[in-house]
């Protein structure tokens, strides 16, 4: 495995204008990598993520994003994402284009992307206004039953970024606990960066473990506590208090800017 720093990996893999998916479903959110993207002042990104949360609030608030592809944008268990809302409601710091799906739609878009298919089929969106405002929701007819189902196009981000608990020295990556769509987003993306808590000699089995073989990944970088304030199962807990504090930090534009300058740089 190539030795590389997080700064080098982001510099090499994430470019202005890219579509970038940082995934992690509550668990294992790639916070360290998101902060590195902010420090490197990437611009015009199409940010993709099922659950835009604090890191996307930060990326949007710092002006990195041109567009957001998502299915649920909130601070889980707390409330609104104020930078996300400010961008959509008031165009601050600049207007944000959105492409909005349901969780089932987004998950299946990644599955189609990972599978090399142009689209995915699901029972979804029926009767909702989502299909009216999102042009990437269409229908397809079953050639056997004649039933009409929803169709969504594959997602193939330029870059996928995820955080995992472990990699071995050959670059095989292990996640366990809640593993979300991490396997799918990595396999759907053109380039993949994985930050890990720890590099180990041998990956030990764990319940619900997902292993990505090294050939699926372009760079593996050690980033201890790289998912904080989210959590890494077996390493550290979610800092629920910080999620609550973020509400006050992010509510005001200046408070947010000051906090980012002091804590992210």
């Amino acid at each position: 495995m190539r030795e590389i720093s997080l700064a080098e990996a982001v510099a090499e893999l994430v470019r202005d204008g890219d579509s970038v998916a940082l995934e992690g479903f509550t668990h294992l959110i790639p916070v360290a990598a998101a902060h590195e993207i902010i420090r490197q002042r990437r611009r015009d990104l199409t940010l993709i993520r099922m659950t835009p949360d604090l890191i996307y609030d930060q990326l949007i608030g710092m002006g990195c994003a041109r567009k957001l592809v998502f299915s649920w944008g909130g601070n889980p268990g707390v409330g609104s994402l104020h930078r996300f809302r400010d961008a959509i409601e008031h165009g601050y710091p600049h207007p944000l284009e959105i492409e909005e799906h349901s969780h089932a739609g987004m998950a299946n878009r990644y599955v189609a992307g990972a599978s090399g298919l142009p689209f995915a089929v699901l029972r979804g969106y029926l009767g909702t206004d989502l299909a009216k405002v999102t042009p990437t929701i269409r229908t397809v007819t079953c050639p056997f039953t004649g039933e009409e189902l929803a169709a969504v196009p594959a997602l193939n981000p330029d870059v996928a970024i995820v955080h995992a608990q472990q990699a071995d020295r050959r670059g095989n990556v292990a996640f366990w606990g809640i593993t979300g769509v991490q396997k799918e987003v990595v396999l759907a993306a053109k380039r993949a960066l994985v930050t890990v808590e720890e590099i180990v000699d041998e990956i030990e089995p764990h319940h619900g473990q997902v292993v990505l073989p090294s050939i699926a990944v372009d760079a593996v970088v050690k980033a201890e506590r790289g998912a904080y304030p989210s959590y890494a199962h077996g390493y550290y807990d979610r800092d629920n208090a910080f999620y609550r504090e973020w509400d006050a930090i992010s509510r005001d534009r200046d408070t947010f800017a000051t906090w980012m300058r002091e804590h992210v740089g």
Partner: protein
Amino acid sequence: MTATTDEIMTVAAARELRDGVLCFVGIGLPSAAANLARATHAPNCTLIYESGTIGAKPTRLPLSIGDGELADTADALVSVPEIFNYWLQAGRVDVGFLGAAQIDRFGNLNTTVVGDYADPKVRLPGAGGAPEIAASAKEVIMVLRHNTRAFVERLSFVTSVVKGPRVVLTDLGVLRPDETGELVLVAVHPNVTVEQAKAATGWDLRVAAEVAVTEPPTEKELSVLRALHAA
């Protein structure tokens, strides 16, 4: 113990959950209600969270749908695509629990925007798992606070269309659909009047011929609910 209106609503929601069902749980009030049910009259319910935990048995209420407690106590952990495709879409889920910012008289839900979609007054979180839970669960239990901002004549945006039989639990009472699908007030909570419920509804709320009064939360229900919150 005196119950708060939120506690009465949560207890009423928990009581709707029959034992032995497979329940797809959203975070917040639905999670509190489902776990209260599991800890009292419905110990054989299986709880599924959209994060991919099947059969989670949390002893404290998770703050998010992906808390480690859910993974630690689950029978099985699967990916998010699997939860939505193999479990929800496949029709295995008996009961879906949903909240919303707005509801209309037919139980359709809005969690997307207040105002115009392109230029919203309030941008809400969005759909999440709700449209497919609403469509695929055999039965949907909705929980939300009763006021005219939430109970509206016309939704700003239709995020989810609820299909199966359903019940709506509020902090004022209980609503069930009649044969046309329109929600009817069938019960009020203790110390709540039918007039209060009607005044808190943005349309001309239909009222059942006989309006029941909710049994107040028992000591057991309240103490278990508070323990779940405190843990």
